[in-house]
């Protein structure tokens, strides 16, 4: 009825390619019949839809206290004094603690020791903790937290990662604002520059992002007597919390038990950050002897937690007349914020990902990690890769435009493949290299050629565009994190044939329980419903590192397979005895142990389990997995940063209303090199969710910082996509036999996110015929990019 801002009507017609036939039919290594690659109901789903899942905010204990934080509202100041008397006087307040009350080390940094749990003399960012409160009611706790009086003397701060490197800039820490510079140096830039006929120089301003998981940060600390305690937390990395709490309380690691609560989304935001609230709750619990629960409200969560790093990325890239890339120079300034956190680790991925899956003979990359007084950067899905990918894919399109080449053709001419297998780090890819395949698959689903041949003409005010983004994702942890790249599993076969599985990697919604269940069921030849995977708990499995880097399924899966193999050294002989065959002939599948090649000679796995129990055989097995050690030179960035890689390509189709700067993402076609599908529905869910989350980052999710204060710390003005914004999504799943995890699977969580925003950016620029080098593409940003080309630009002159 109304004449709305021109936005196209959406239908929902998604295409899905690949993956329904059995692996063997697709020319892949065959697996015995089982749940692998299917879509059985997720084990956690029925409780979640009924509202029966107990998140940490749903847990309470008798005598439990509620915690609150007194945090700084300014970004840079000296602390003259701190007065907690008014806070202590608030009725129902039990404890108000400051740095002096920390029994162990007052230090919480994930990698470096630059961040105190509670500040003493200096405020370096908004959210720095001045004091902790425990009270009998949450209302009293937060009132008391506000009553903590800090006498602060403002000192100049720095809020721009480029300006922070100027001589004379205020320094955030002693030792200057440049914390690290990482490099990739390959080939000779100078000699290659002379071969380039087109050179693109650009400076990209790529904004940060809040994780906006639906469940804010929360944890519960429970003292267990006077010498140990349990933490239940919404988190991705219980082992990080274990280490952090032990350090702050001065306890042995074994005295700190961390159980992961069902976790309402993470996306990296519950990798490093939850150690901070957990240490706060633990300290309060330690002092009061009472259980203490700390729940963040949304404004606090948005205001003080880690963010995706904002980056400034400078490019000088050249290509020859045929479009072959000759050299690429990249200089990236990462806004680390006030503390190092995981910034150097994020920088490692950004540093080696910034060239993309392209063969470039000469590369010079500098990645600077810079302190500012802004909110600190942390882990976020893609871990530095989305920002540098956004820049790289923009530059590829600019080069194509300069050369008059189709952006698809430009990528075809430079993508790595079976012949050109060498990355910018000098690493030679092993196994199938599917960059071209994902590129062709995604553009085919998007009808790339047809779109370019006859661009749709909508109403006179809409412009349509299509853009590509092609990426290479290094699976699992970077070389720099190798010491953490191991995992543990425990498998217990019950006398009734049901199975308990414990792993050290967490499910925060992405589906690790489902993946672990599928893999265990496949390996033991039982139905998924027979396998119960329980929440991770640091006392039941060995330290398995963090659940990050899309490594959950791989690392838990490999450890489970190891555990099952060990269990079968005891199970197979019993089965063989029951079947009257040799142990080597026993196969598990479909709920049965069978004699290989003789499906009719069978006995149920449950029967074998009962027999094992009656013989008092060991029905529990542990499993362990380590990734392959690699060499890497951190001075030159040459070597093998990752064990193996996954390729992904997204193609976005957009409609832009240029006069209002409104971007509508109509469709995204996504092709992914997944190795092997473990659970089809969960895989699709990761891709669909990654795309929409990345669309939010690319288009609407601006973090507005003023002097280090987030001025939009709420969902009213921090704008994440709703159901009405979701595009059509086409998915192609490319399976292959190559290096990978369990059954050849590669991670999907991050590859699903990394390409999208760049594809959208390229589509918008295609639609408008101009370059926009600032993310996100909010309406004011798009309109500003039009400048005098806005048909009504003259009204601004008039109103001056």
């Amino acid at each position, binding site marked *: 009825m*109304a004449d709305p801002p021109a936005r196209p009507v959406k239908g929902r017609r998604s295409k899905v390619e690949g993956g329904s036939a059995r692996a063997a039919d697709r020319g892949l290594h065959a697996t015995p019949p089982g749940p692998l690659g299917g879509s059985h109901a997720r084990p956690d789903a029925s409780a979640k839809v009924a509202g029966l899942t107990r998140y940490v905010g749903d847990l309470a204990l008798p005598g439990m206290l509620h915690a609150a934080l007194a945090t700084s509202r300014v970004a840079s100041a000296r602390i003259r004094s701190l007065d907690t008397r008014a806070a202590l006087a608030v009725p129902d307040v039990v404890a108000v603690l400051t740095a002096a009350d920390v029994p162990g080390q007052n230090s919480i940094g994930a990698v470096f020791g630059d961040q105190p749990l509670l500040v003493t003399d200096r405020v370096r960012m908004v959210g720095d903790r001045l004091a902790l409160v425990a009270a009998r009611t949450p*209302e009293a706790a937060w009132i008391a937290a506000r009553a903590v009086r800090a006498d602060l003397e403002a000192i100049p701060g720095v809020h721009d990662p480029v300006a922070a490197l100027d001589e004379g800039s205020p320094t955030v820490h002693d030792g200057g604002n440049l914390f690290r510079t990482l490099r990739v140096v390959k080939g000779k830039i100078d000699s290659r520059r002379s071969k380039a006929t087109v050179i693109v120089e650009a400076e990209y301003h790529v904004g940060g992002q809040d994780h906006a998981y639906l469940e804010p940060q929360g944890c519960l600390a429970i003292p267990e007597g006077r010498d140990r305690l349990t933490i239940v937390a919404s988190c991705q990395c219980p082992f990080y919390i274990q280490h952090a709490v032990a350090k702050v309380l001065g306890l042995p690691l074994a005295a700190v038990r961390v159980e992961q609560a069902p976790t309402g989304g993470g996306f990296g935001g519950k990798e490093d950050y939850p150690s901070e609230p957990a240490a706060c709750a633990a300290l309060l619990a330690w002092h009061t002897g009472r259980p203490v629960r700390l729940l963040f409200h949304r404004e606090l969560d948005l205001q003080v937690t880690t963010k995706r790093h904002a980056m400034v990325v400078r490019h000088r890239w050249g290509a020859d007349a045929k479009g072959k890339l000759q050299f690429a120079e990249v200089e990236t300034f990462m806004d680390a914020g006030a503390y190092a956190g995981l910034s150097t680790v994020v920088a490692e991925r950004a540093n080696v990902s910034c060239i993309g899956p392209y063969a470039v003979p000469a590369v010079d990359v500098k990645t600077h990690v810079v302190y500012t007084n802004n909110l600190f950067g942390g882990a976020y899905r893609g871990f530095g890769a989305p920002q540098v990918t956004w820049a790289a894919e923009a530059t590829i399109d600019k080069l194509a435009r300069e050369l008059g080449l189709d952006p698809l053709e430009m990528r075809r001419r430079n993508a790595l493949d079976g012949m050109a297998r060498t990355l910018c780090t000098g690493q030679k890819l092993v196994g199938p290299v599917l960059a071209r395949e994902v590129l062709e698959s995604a553009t085919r689903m998007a009808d790339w050629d047809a779109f370019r041949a006859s661009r749709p003409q909508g109403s006179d005010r809409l412009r349509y565009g299509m853009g590509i983004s092609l990426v290479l994702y290094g699976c699992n942890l970077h070389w720099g994190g190798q010491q953490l790249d191991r995992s543990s599993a425990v498998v217990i076969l019950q006398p009734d044939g049901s199975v308990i599985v414990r792993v050290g990697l967490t499910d925060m919604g992405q589906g690790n329980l489902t993946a672990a269940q599928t893999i265990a069921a496949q390996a033991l030849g039982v139905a998924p419903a027979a396998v119960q995977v329980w929440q991770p708990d640091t006392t039941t499995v060995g330290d398995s590192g963090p659940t990050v880097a899309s490594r959950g399924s791989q690392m838990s899966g490999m450890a489970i397979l190891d555990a099952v193999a060990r269990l079968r050294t005891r199970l197979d002989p019993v089965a063989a005895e029951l079947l009257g065959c040799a142990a080597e002939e026993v196969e598990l599948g479909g709920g049965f142990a069978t004699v290989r090649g003789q499906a009719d000679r069978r006995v149920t796995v449950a029967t074998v389990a009962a027999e094992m129990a009656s013989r008092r055989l060991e029905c529990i097995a542990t499993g362990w997995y380590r990734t392959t050690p690699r060499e890497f030179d951190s001075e030159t960035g040459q070597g093998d940063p990752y064990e193996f890689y996954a390729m992904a390509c997204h193609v976005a189709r957009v409609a832009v209303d240029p006069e209002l700067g409104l971007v509508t993402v109509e469709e995204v076609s996504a092709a992914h090199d997944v190795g092997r599908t473990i659970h089809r529905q969960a895989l699709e869910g990761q891709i669909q969710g990654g795309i929409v989350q990345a669309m939010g980052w690319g288009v609407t999710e601006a973090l507005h910082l003023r002097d280090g204060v987030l001025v939009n710390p709420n969902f009213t003005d921090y704008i994440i996509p709703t159901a009405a914004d979701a595009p059509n999504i086409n998915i192609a799943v490319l399976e292959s036999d190559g290096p990978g995890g369990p059954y050849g699977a590669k991670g999907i969580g991050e590859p699903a996110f990394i390409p999208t925003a760049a594809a959208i950016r390229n589509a918008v620029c295609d639609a408008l015929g101009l370059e926009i080098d600032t993310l996100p593409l*909010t*309406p004011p940003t798009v309109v*500003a990019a039009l400048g005098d080309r806005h048909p009504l630009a003259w009204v*601004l002159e008039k109103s001056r």
Partner: protein
Amino acid sequence: MDLPVQDVLRPRSLREALRVLADHPGARPVAGGTDLVVQLRDGRRQAELLVDLSRVGLDGITETDRGIAIGAGTTMDVIATHRAVRTHFPALATAASQVGAWPIQCRATLGGNLANASPAADTAPALLVAGAAVTVASARGQSQLPLEELFVGPGRTSLRSNELIVSVLLPVSRTGAGRRLVERFVKVGPRREQIISVVCMAGRVVVAADGRLELVRLAFGSVAPTPVRARATERLLERRVLDDRLRQEALGVVQEDVKPIDDVRAPASYRRLAVATLLDRFLAEVARG
């Protein structure tokens, strides 16, 4: 967490509600609570005493010979789907369907949307172009004022603390033979749904048989301290025949009617361009016929 209020009273009639407000200066009425509860929670507004209007019976839409009267307690979903509202005041129906998301629309009331006096209140421009009058009651009696006189500044109205908005009257006039009514509400924001207007506009135009614009009412949200009528533009256009030149002129004149600021949602320059764009599109539609 509990809201920081001391007490809540729950009158069962308008009379009782008005008496409670008269007896307790500083008491704050609450209907749907979709704005007030948020503001109480984050400290933007304070109230010791709330007066819950749930059972006062201010909801409902009635058609009279004077027009359509919408009770102040009527929720947005009801307004958006009401047949008479959609027929006579389509801009209001559209605006009501875009106030927050569905669970907000099922709770937010028209009276609350106006009493909250947000410059971005979506129903306000639609009501302004409808020529709405607000009926206000206190223990002393009822009075009526043009809607424009209700808004004083961001979050501020001319209501006294003992007064309540009880209804909003939309006068229905016959368009008449040979005349054509064009009425629209359009909202601009970075997301398709559930978004606070960066700019919104309502327009109501009656085109006479000879092509002259007989009646022109234009109103904007989020471009001034209150929702505003674009009076200068209206004067420019009234009794004229719309052509491309006049349309262009209007886009310049409307800039005098608005005073946008830079804020977290958009810079003033964006809002000025959006105002011009929305007006341009509306006038193009009027011209198309």
